[in-house]
Every structure is written in structure tokens, then in C-alpha cells.
């Protein structure tokens, strides 16, 4: 469903991605691994339209995303859980979720979606009226995921959801991602935490210094020496 071809992107003058190719099929969980600064966040931001691509194409279900205004991307079925969560801190939890369902397609179904999201994250229902900025790190991550789900995406992009969370919370979040996937949402999971991510995903890519250096099934990648090399520089 998602096809990225020859994607080149960066910030200002700094090029961060060199001709990246990747695909996510319907119903898949694909993970994009790589150490700090490999260009993973740039990739997420370029696909979700947060930054302009320099060249190359991004297609969702055969429709090109690179030329539409970035506020339309949500309408087309891509939702993002950005690095650092970036929830709206001075809005309540329920308002954050409502913003997630802002696009017209999602807005009509927002009540049912909200029920679904509350089912996945009962904690968010308990905290409905609370300001999002006052939530704990783990709860904020749930909110960021919940907000993205409210957009009724066919593809969910996650940028390092495990960042800064206690291992037990990481486990919980990844378990929920599996649930979400079973409900029919494809997932592109960008992670530094390779072992947990590969445990979840069917396939994976490894990004190093802006280029994809390895790709393959999760089980193969885990054994791949190149993965360690990419991460640990040894």
C-alpha cells in the first residue's frame, strides 16, 4: 500500500536521506531500524508531509502524496505518532483525540472511533478531562497513538514510540500495536530499539547514515552482524 521510491529529503541544507526505497503491504508491520541520527525521523516526516521531499515519490494505494498540501495527507489515510509524542499539552486528553479526528473522513465516524480508542487505552478515558501536558510519559505516548488512531488511518507511522519509556511500558505499547494491526491498520514502526521492534514486525529495514543498508525478514535481521555494526560502530 505504501510505496516510497528514491526518496531524498533533509532539513535546510542538510541532506538526511539518500534515495530511500521501501514498501509496506496491506496489513503488515514493517520496522525501520537504525541508530541515532540515521535519518529515521526525516523519513517519517517526509512520508507524513511534515517536511518537503527533495525528490523521489511517496505513494499510498497508488496515489502520489508528494504534491498535495501537507494538511491533506491525514485525509488520505496516513496518521503519524511523531518523535517526542508532540501532543497538544494545553488541551485536554479528549480534545487531543478530537483533533486527531479533524479530517472529514474521520470526523463523521469520530464517536465510534473514540469508543474503540478508549477500549484500547482505558487510561485515556479515565483521564479525559485532564490537560495532556500533565500526563506521565507513558500516558502521553498512549495519547499520541490514540490521537493518530482517531484519524482512521490505513497506515500508522510511529517514530520511536519506545523513547524514554520504562521497559515494561515499552512492552505494553508494543503489545497494543499488535492489537491495532490486527484491527486492520498497517504499521510502519521507526525504532532504535531493534530487538523489541523486530519481535513485533514481519519485515525490517536498517537505515544507516541516510541510506538503507539492509532489508529482510525480522528473523534474518536479528541474526545479521551488519545490524550490530550499524548500531554499535564495531
Amino acid at each position: 500500500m505504501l510505496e516510497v521510491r528514491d526518496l531524498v529529503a533533509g532539513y535546510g541544507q542538510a541532506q538526511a536521506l539518500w534515495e530511500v526505497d521501501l514498501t509496506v503491504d496491506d496489513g503488515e508491520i514493517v520496522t525501520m531500524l537504525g541508530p541515532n541520527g540515521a535519518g529515521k525521523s526525516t523519513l517519517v516526516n517526509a512520508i507524513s508531509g511534515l517536511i518537503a521531499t527533495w525528490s523521489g515519490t511517496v505513494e499510498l494505494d497508488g496515489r502520489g502524496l508528494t504534491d498535495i498540501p501537507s494538511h491533506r495527507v491525514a485525509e488520505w489515510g496516513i496518521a503519524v505518532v511523531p518523535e517526542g509524542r508532540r501532543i497538544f499539552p494545553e488541551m485536554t486528553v479528549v480534545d487531543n483525540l478530537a483533533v486527531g479526528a479533524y479530517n472529514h473522513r474521520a470526523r463523521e465516524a469520530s464517536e465510534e472511533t473514540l469508543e474503540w480508542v478508549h477500549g484500547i487505552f482505558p487510561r485515556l478515558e479515565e483521564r479525559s478531562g485532564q490537560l495532556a501536558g500533565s500526563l506521565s510519559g507513558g500516558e502521553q505516548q498512549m495519547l499520541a497513538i490514540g490521537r493518530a488512531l482517531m484519524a482512521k488511518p490505513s497506515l500508522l507511522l510511529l517514530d520511536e514510540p519506545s523513547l524514554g519509556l520504562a521497559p515494561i511500558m515499552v512492552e505494553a505499547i508494543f503489545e497494543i500495536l499488535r492489537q491495532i494491526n490486527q484491527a486492520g491498520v498497517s504499521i510502519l514502526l521507526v525504532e532504535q530499539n531493534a530487538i523489541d521492534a523486530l519481535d513485533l514486525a514481519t519485515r525490517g529495514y536498517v537505515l544507516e547514515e541516510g541510506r538503507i543498508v539492509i532489508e529482510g525478514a525480522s528473523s534474518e535481521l536479528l541474526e545479521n552482524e551488519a545490524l550490530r555494526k550499524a548500531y554499535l560502530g564495531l
Partner: protein
Amino acid sequence: MSLLVCKSVSKRFGGIRALNGVSTSIEEHEILGLVGPNGSGKSTLINVLSGLYTADDGEAQFGDLDLLRLAPEKIAAAGVARTFQIPRPFDTMTVRENVSVSYMFGHRRHSLEAARDAASEWLAFTGLEAAADSPVDQLTLHQLKFLELARALATDPTLLLLDEVLAGLNPTEIEQSIEMIRKIHERGITLVIVEHLLRVVTSLSDRIVVLDQGSVIAAGDPTEVMADPAVVAAYLGGRAPDARGA
């Protein structure tokens, strides 16, 4: 001999503990690599040591000064300089003026006239002479990073904290930057480099300190440290071995 000794340095942002009692030391004339996964607290440590953030707790002895209790300008005057990951040049000034200002203040005070000459020296050292009289908005990222270096060097530091000098550069530029870091070190300046390109850090550093979730999880010889299971787990994730959080 230790140039800088950090004892249980802590810094919280809201509910997040960015630095959780970091204790470590920096030896004279060494290159210390400071590494760790995203969000592990490396940049926060640099920001605390350079006075940009106020630490909540701990001390950082530099000679008989505690850097954590000093204003940033006093830290600079003591001989500690830093660079920023995203270059922050003075953008209404030319390249030369940027460096001159830093020479005028910095570690010792100098006159305006002396600063013009000294700036040339540091611009030559960093290979920026050709761009000396350009406004900074005409520089490439690579040049801006070298300007960060030139400006920090012009303060005449004994300790230089480099925050992700290589981020955003292409392979050729990375090679050039590594050469530059070596040259700086040869001048007798002690370096702390925060870097995510581990192959570069391991080859450059005399010693490595690994941070994870605001704590030091390993320190020592680069190759040994990077093979430490706790470090591997910090980077690759998965079941945390018992060493975690030690």
C-alpha cells in the same frame, strides 16, 4: 590528572529525569566520547556543563570552580567552550566578526584590534578564510559547523564540548571534520565529543562514557565498552541485562 570531575549531576524537566546522578571525570588532554541512545541525556549534560541549563543537583569541579554554580559567561572565562548541534551563528555578522567577538570575550579579554588578527588565524585553521567576509547566511551547513568550531576555539578553551559536530554532514564532510577534531586535539585542548556516529566516536576517542536514560551505564576503552552487554541492550533494546541502570 582529571580536568573535570562530575559528581551526581542531576537535571529534571517536568517529570522527566534527563540526568539521573551522572558521575564521571574528564582527564586532561583526552578525547572523551559521550554516547548513548536518543534521549539518553548527552546533550543535556553538555548544556548543564556550559551553563545553558541550571542543574538540579550535583557538582562539576573544574580546577577549584564548580561549573554547575557558575553563570555561562563565567564558565567561558574559566576556559570551557562548546558548540551547538544546530549552528547558532550571530546572523547579522560576517564570519570574521563572529569569530572576532568570541575572541574579544571568551577566556581572556582582548581588544577589538587584536580580535581582528586573531580571527584570521582561527579562520585559517578551520579553512574558512575564503568565506571570512561573507554574511553567515551564505554558508553551507558544513561551513557553519566549522564556524561553530572556530568561534569556540577563539575563546581559547582548555576544555571544548562538541555537540554533534557531524550531524547532517555527508561522508566527505565527515572525514574533513574528523581531521579537524584531530587537529584541535593536537593543540592540547581536551575534548568531549557527543556523537551518534559510533564508528567515528570509537575511532577518535581515548575513552567512552555511555549514557542511557540519564545514567552512566558504562565507561572505559571504546571497543570494550561497546561490546558491553548493557550497552548493546541500551542500543538494540530487548531484555535488559542486570547491568542496566547501574
